[in-house]
C-alpha cells in the first residue's frame, strides 16, 4: 500500500489527494520529518518511525494557518484539488528559505501542477506569507 493510500484510507486523512500517482503532479505532497515528499511514491512501511505532517495539521479549527489565509486572500485556489499539495510544498519551501524571491518561489513550486489558477495567485500568496514574521508559524 502506498503511503498516500495509507494516509487516506487507514488514517482517514483525505486532505492528501491522488492526482497522477506517478510522481509528477504533487497533489499527494506531505511532509515526512519536515521534508516534502510525494506520498504516492512511498510505501506505507517506509514511514515507520517518521513524523508525518499533512494538510489537516495546518492551522486550528478556529484559525486558518497563515498560508491558508493567504491562499484565500489571493484566490490561490479554485477547485482546490492541488491545494493541499501546494500548501505542504509551501510549508517546506518557507522552512528552508523564509524570504524567497519570486523566482525562487517559482522554481520551488515547479513540482506541483495546478489546472485552474495559472500559478500567479499561488506565488503571490506564498510571497505574502514570507514577508510576515515566521515566528508564529507552527
Amino acid at each position, binding site marked *: 500500500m502506498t503511503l498516500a493510500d495509507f494516509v487516506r484510507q487507514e488514517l482517514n486523512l483525505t486532505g492528501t489527494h491522488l492526482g497522477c500517482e*506517478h*510522481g509528477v503532479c504533487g497533489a499527494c505532497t506531505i511532509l515526512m520529518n519536515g521534508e516534502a515528499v510525494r506520498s504516492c511514491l*512511498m*510505501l506505507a512501511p517506509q514511514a515507520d518511525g517518521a513524523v508525518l505532517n499533512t494538510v489537516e495539521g495546518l492551522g486550528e479549527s478556529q484559525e486558518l494557518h497563515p498560508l491558508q489565509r493567504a491562499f484565500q486572500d489571493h484566490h490561490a485556489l479554485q477547485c482546490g484539488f492541488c491545494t493541499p499539495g501546494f500548501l505542504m510544498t509551501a510549508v*517546506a519551501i518557507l522552512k528552508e528559505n523564509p524570504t524567497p524571491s519570486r523566482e525562487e518561489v517559482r522554481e*520551488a513550486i515547479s*513540482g506541483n501542477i495546478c489546472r485552474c489558477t495559472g500559478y500567479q495567485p499561488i506565488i503571490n500568496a506564498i510571497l505574502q506569507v514570507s514577508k510576515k514574521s515566521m515566528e508564529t508559524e507552527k
Partner: protein
Amino acid sequence: MKPAPFEYFAPSELPEALELLERYGDEAKVLAGGQSLMPLMNLRLARPKVIVDINRLSNLSFIAVNSSGVLTVGGLTRQREMERSVVVRQQNPLLAAALPMIGHFQIRNRGTLGGSIVHADPAAELPAVSLLLEVEFSLRSKSGVRRVRAQDFFMDYLTTALRPDELLTEVQFPSWSQRDGWAIEEIARRNGDFAIVGVALRIRMDEADMIRNAGIVTFGVGGIPQRVHRAEEGLIGRKPDPQLAAELAKVVAEELKPDSDLHASAEYRKEVGGVLARRALTSALVRARSKEEN
C-alpha cells in the same frame, strides 16, 4: 494506478539485504528513493515479485573526502543531502551544479545517488556526470565487491553492468582539480522535466591559455550518456579563439546519433546538443580563466 502485488522485505543490515538479493535474483528489485521505481510499479510497467527496501541501511548514506581530495559518497545518499553538502560543493563543483537539475526538490528529498545511477535513465544527470568524472562504482554482493568504472557500467537504455544480486554501495569521485573549467547545460520543456538533451563539459588549460585536456558527455541522446571523443580531441592543443565554440557545436552535432521520440526529433537533439556544447564551452572557459588569475 496501484502496484501489482509483491512480497516486501526491509532488511536492517547489509548482509541480510545481499542474502535476499542472492536468493531472489532477478525476481527482486531494490527500492531506495523510489522516485523512478515506484512510478513504474504504480503504472504496472514493472511488476517485481519481490521488493528489497534498503532504506534502513543507513551506513550506505554518507559523504566523505580523504586527504587526497577523493570524494566517496554512499549509494543510499539522498540527492538533496548532496545538494546541501558543503563538502560536495567544495570538492566537486560540477557535481554540485548537476544536483539541482534533477527533477524537483521533493524528488531529491527521497531520490538517491545510487538509485539514479543504476536506473540509468538516458536523460538523467548523475549517470552522465559519473561518466565525465570517470568515477568508480563499488558493487557489492554476498561474494564480495567489484569495482567498475563508469565507462564500463552503462550498457544500454535502463541497463547497466549491475548484476541482480548486487547493490551499488558507494561511488568514488577522483579528486577534482580546482583549476578546471566546467559547465553543465540541459534543455527541458519546463524546469524539472526530463532533459531533452544535455551536455556536461570539463577543460583544463595551461599557463599559455591552451587547452590541455577536455571531457565532454552528452545525455538524452540515445540509450546511454555519450562521451564525444572527436569533440574532445578537437579542443586539445587549441587556444580558444572566437570560432572555437562554434566549431565545437558543429562537431558535437555531427557526432550525436540520438533517437527521435515524443519529446523531440533526432535532428532537434543533434542541433540543440551542439548549441548546449557551445554554451558549455563558453562558460567553462570563463571559469578556467578566472582560476588562472587567482
